[in-house]
């Protein structure tokens, strides 16, 4: 049975539809990433799973339970890292982890957990004196302390340094191995590609695509051979020689709609050699997750580091 089930979830705020008929599921031992530009509806979806918001229509289930009506039961199974969450400003990491441990029936050992997130040296420092990255690490520890079956991480790597990112990656992998269902949001493609088993691309509240990073890239694959050469190149003649359309998306860049086999590459280079045309930057058309994302949402996922605001 899926640990997280989202069935035709719709969330409206007045005239704004933040989430529109979204259906997704994630199993135990699986890492599902919600990827989308800012304002795509990722946080709103996550807040429905956390029981903060009642769906306008559709249902969400965490560990088979309704997060609003079975709030307390869901919370015993759920570990959460909220986006940009503050704690009591005077609390120390040691106290915070112990306090949160007291909320759960079978918590992890607080000191071992602090060591796992690399905070053992900072266990006695007031929260407000921790760096942003240390506060993130503590937030991650608090998400794990109750041995949750489902972990929801909202932008877990936002604002983290390289070391912090590696830590999140390692912990997510450990959780997957322990059979925990991990759902995370991100607008950073690199992270998602490294963290997630499956990626759901969301834009304007709708699911645009879902699958493994490799599947998504393969589905978006279009046979093409791309190269750079002087803009004066005779496209019609080359097209006739190769028996395929030759496009010039920008001056000096040419795209040939053929399968990039060794034979077609040889045909192209010999044609260029006969005419003594300089060739640079030959590449084949393997699509990346970024291409898929750009094609589906029309925005670049990595440029914007602002935090998503739910309406």
């Amino acid at each position: 049975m899926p640990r997280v089930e989202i069935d035709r979830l719709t969330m409206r705020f007045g005239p704004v539809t933040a989430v529109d008929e979204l259906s997704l599921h994630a199993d135990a031992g699986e890492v599902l990433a919600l990827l989308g530009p800012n304002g795509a509806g990722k946080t709103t979806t996550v807040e429905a799973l956390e029981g903060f918001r009642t769906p306008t229509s559709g249902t969400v289930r965490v560990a088979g339970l309704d997060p609003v009506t079975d709030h307390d039961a869901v919370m015993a199974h759920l570990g959460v890292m909220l986006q940009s969450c503050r704690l009591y400003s005077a609390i120390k990491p040691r106290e915070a982890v112990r306090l949160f441990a007291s909320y759960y029936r079978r918590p992890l050992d607080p000191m071992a957990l602090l060591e796992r997130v690399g905070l053992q040296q900072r266990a006695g420092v007031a929260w407000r004196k921790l760096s942003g990255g240390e506060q993130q690490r503590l937030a991650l520890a608090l998400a794990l302390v109750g041995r949750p079956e489902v972990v929801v991480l909202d932008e877990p790597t936002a604002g983290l340094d390289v070391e912090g990112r590696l830590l999140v990656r390692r912990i997510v992998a450990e959780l997957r191995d322990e059979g925990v269902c991990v759902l995370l949001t991100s607008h950073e493609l690199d992270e998602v590609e490294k963290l997630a088993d499956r990626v759901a691309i969301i834009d304007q509240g709708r699911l645009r695509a879902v699958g493994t990073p490799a599947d998504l890239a393969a589905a978006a694959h279009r046979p093409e051979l791309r190269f750079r050469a002087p803009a004066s190149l005779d496209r019609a003649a080359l097209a006739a020689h190769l028996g395929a359309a030759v496009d010039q998306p920008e001056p000096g860049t040419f795209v040939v709609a053929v399968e990039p086999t060794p034979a077609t590459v040889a045909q192209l280079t010999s044609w260029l050699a006969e005419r003594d045309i300089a060739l640079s930057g030959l590449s084949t058309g393997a699509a990346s997750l970024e291409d898929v994302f750009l094609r589906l949402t029309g925005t670049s996922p990595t440029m914007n580091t602002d935090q998503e605001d739910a309406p």
Partner: protein
Amino acid sequence: MNALWAQTRNEVVLSLRQGEQLLVALGIPILLLVFLSQVDLLPRATDRPVDELAPAMLALAVMSSSMVSLGIGTGFERHYGVLKRLGVTPLGRPRLLGAKVIATFGIEVVQVLSLSLVALLLGWQPRWQPALLLLAVVLGTATFAGLGLLLAGTLSGPANLAACNGLYLVLLLFGGIAVPASELPGPAGAVASSLPTGALVELMRAATTDTQSVGRALIVLAIWAVVSPIAAATTFRWSPST
């Protein structure tokens, strides 16, 4: 450790760690008690100012821990999303509120003991009525915690800070604490005795003397003690955004 006790301990430890909380809870009432009983500044009905001041300062102490400390603390927890984070744990609202109530009563016990000790040193001669004292503390706490949480649950963090402190000052000066309601001119006195502070001072006085006639003050405070928590409960929003 049991969640309720861990949370209660957390509430107490964190509020003691903040100097301004200690100042409001203990420093100001004790300072005012000593100062006003030694310096002949305000109109007094008796020539033994400490007898009048001690119950008033007990009322002030209840107001400062249940309205100011609780209200400001909770307001910032809400403002910064701490309450939202607690909302995604199995702690639950009843235990969170329970912890806050127990922590507040714990601090009030310390306040009553230390204020009484200082007042005794200043020559106070109370006649304790323990049941009435307990009733006064319970009704006063319900009233002022309700008012504090009403502000904390509806205003933003900084606005709530200003409102809690402002209300504290107004009630201290005009609510029958610094100046007894009976000494305030005409209508101001009538208003003061209908305010929860005026009523609580009356009850505190009755609880520490052999006064029997507390009927009106008791009714006034009981009404406040029912109305203000209901107002807080119906308007409280756990997070400013959701």
